């Protein structure tokens, strides 16, 4: 090899190496910015829940870190300053979300199983039809529900909201559980039946335990939907008897002022359970979403 060619080769190598380095830097920078954008808003809320109100409202902005529990104390102090009954809201949210989740899972699992295991005419049409009911905007639905619930007398009750959330969660639960049951080989059920199980036993002893993780993540998805829902809850609840946390958030806003610190504290209270639950099931959640839904 001549010296010139060797030089050329090392130059090519060098540009190649440089380009790779540049790409890696770009990659890293992109990820960094993305993660910042995702994390900063949440972090800002958490930080402000620990900042004294004076400091939040300070102009020019005060960046020195300081720490106070005043908002949490006020919040958990119940009907103290501001008078937001956070505990009641929390309990309402929990009761409503949990019961609607359990019922929606039972109903949705039964439907999802039908889609995963049976062949019938116009199956896709049924499936898409059910999903379309999920697509009805909450605001649009809240108008007639508001009137009907007021007539029937279940407005501002746990029962009313539970009912609504069950109906809202059933279609998507069907989508998810359909996906999970589809991943279980049909032979498993058949083996159980040959081993002496009734159809009922075969489901609860073999198929359900196998799909357990998936069903759990469908449940958490349903729970989060109820836990976070606002459009319907804001119209169908009025008193502290049935208001949920998302509606309660509005209590911190007055005509012209907002108690930012208190709101941030309540936001943290809302987000922590959701955070924990989601991380528990993230893996299954994704596989259920991608597996289910109109196939074949």
């Amino acid at each position, binding site marked *: 090899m001549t010296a010139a060619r060797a030089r050329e080769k090392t130059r090519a190598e060098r540009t190649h190496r440089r380009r790779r380095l540049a790409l890696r830097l770009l*990659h890293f920078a*992109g990820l960094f910015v993305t*993660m910042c954008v*995702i*994390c900063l*808003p949440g972090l*800002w*809320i958490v930080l*402000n829940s620990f900042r004294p109100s004076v400091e939040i409202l300070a*102009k*020019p*902005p005060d960046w020195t870190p300081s720490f106070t529990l005043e908002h949490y104390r006020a919040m958990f102090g119940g009907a103290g300053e501001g008078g937001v009954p956070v505990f009641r809201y929390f309990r309402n949210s929990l009761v409503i979300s949990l019961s609607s989740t359990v019922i929606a899972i*039972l109903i949705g699992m*039964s*439907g999802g199983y*039908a889609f995963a295991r*049976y062949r*019938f005419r116009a199956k896709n049409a049924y499936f898409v039809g*059910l*999903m*379309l*009911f999920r*697509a*009805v*905007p*909450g*605001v*649009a*639905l*809240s*108008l*007639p*529900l508001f*009137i*009907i619930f007021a007539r029937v007398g279940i407005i501002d009750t746990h029962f009313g909201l539970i009912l609504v959330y069950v*109906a*809202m969660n*059933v279609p*998507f639960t*069907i989508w998810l559980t359909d996906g999970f049951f589809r991943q279980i080989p049909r032979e498993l059920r058949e083996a159980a039946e040959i081993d002496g199980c009734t159809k009922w036993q075969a489901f609860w002893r073999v198929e359900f335990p196998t799909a357990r993780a998936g069903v759990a993540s469908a449940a958490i998805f349903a729970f989060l939907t109820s*836990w*976070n*829902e606002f*459009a319907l809850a804001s*119209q169908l609840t009025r008193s502290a008897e049935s208001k949920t946390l*998302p509606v309660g*958030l509005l209590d911190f806003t007055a005509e012209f002022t907002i108690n*930012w610190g208190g709101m*941030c504290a309540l*936001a943290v209270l809302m*987000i922590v359970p*959701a955070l924990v639950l989601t*991380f528990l099931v*993230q893996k299954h959640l*994704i596989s259920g*979403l*991608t597996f289910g*839904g*109109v*196939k074949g």
Partner: protein
Amino acid sequence: MMFPTLRRPPEWLLLLMPAFFVIAAVILMPLVFSLYSSFTPYRLTKPDTLWKWIGTANYQKILTDGKFWAAFGRTILFLTIVLNLELLLGLAIALMISRVTRGQRTLRTILMFPMMFSPILVGFQFKFIFNDNIGLVNNALQSLGFTNAAAPWLVDAKLAMFSIMFAEIWMSTSIFAVLLLAGLFAMPQDPLEAAKVDGCTPWQSFRHITLPFLTPFIFIALTIRSLDVARAYDVVQIMTGGGPARRTELVWTLMSRTGYVDARMGIANAMGYVSILLSILFTLYFFRKLSAARAAIGMSD
């Protein structure tokens, strides 16, 4: 003698029955009711008005109403921009994370962060952050010396639209990124290697191998997303309430104001129907695309 055979309903129907029943009771029935009331001049304050049939007058009224059309057009524009950006950003994020070798799990977990935020929380969060007086953005801009003025993030028509879109994208890009990432992981590696051997540039492999494989996942994401495009209502309602002066008015906020503030339920329900049709069309469209895409790469069984 012939008796009509009384057959038990098939099992699948029995299994679906509870779902049909609850949906019929809680969604279908109210929808029928609201369809009816959209043909009446129903006002909450005057219950008798429910029994007065006025035909399509409500629909005529909203279809000739400039304010409604402005909100409708803005909604379409909003959805188009937001969905496209979410898809693109989600794809970019998924590609970036799929190429990370260490700490990938952590990144994926962080990625799911916005998915668990209540939309109303997102609304408040960005109302706070974009607040012209004490918000993070203006505070940061001022402290860093870029400007002394307070940018009217939620007041100026263009800036307010930008702000609510930003919030919406922040909230919903994750679902795209997470699902597309799952698609990237599920992708078989041999076609990519074959493409490399066949002389494809990285861009060509992406364009001809990766993207077609990802298509069903893209439509899964779009379908799931289209199921609750109306979630944007929560965000916008909190951040701007459609204001100021209707500058960020979307179909949903207009409907809610007409129904609850003005108590004109009949006409609000008519608007509701337009918004329902909008959502259903979006969903149906993506569902069809999803089936086609799945068939195209042989994912259907």
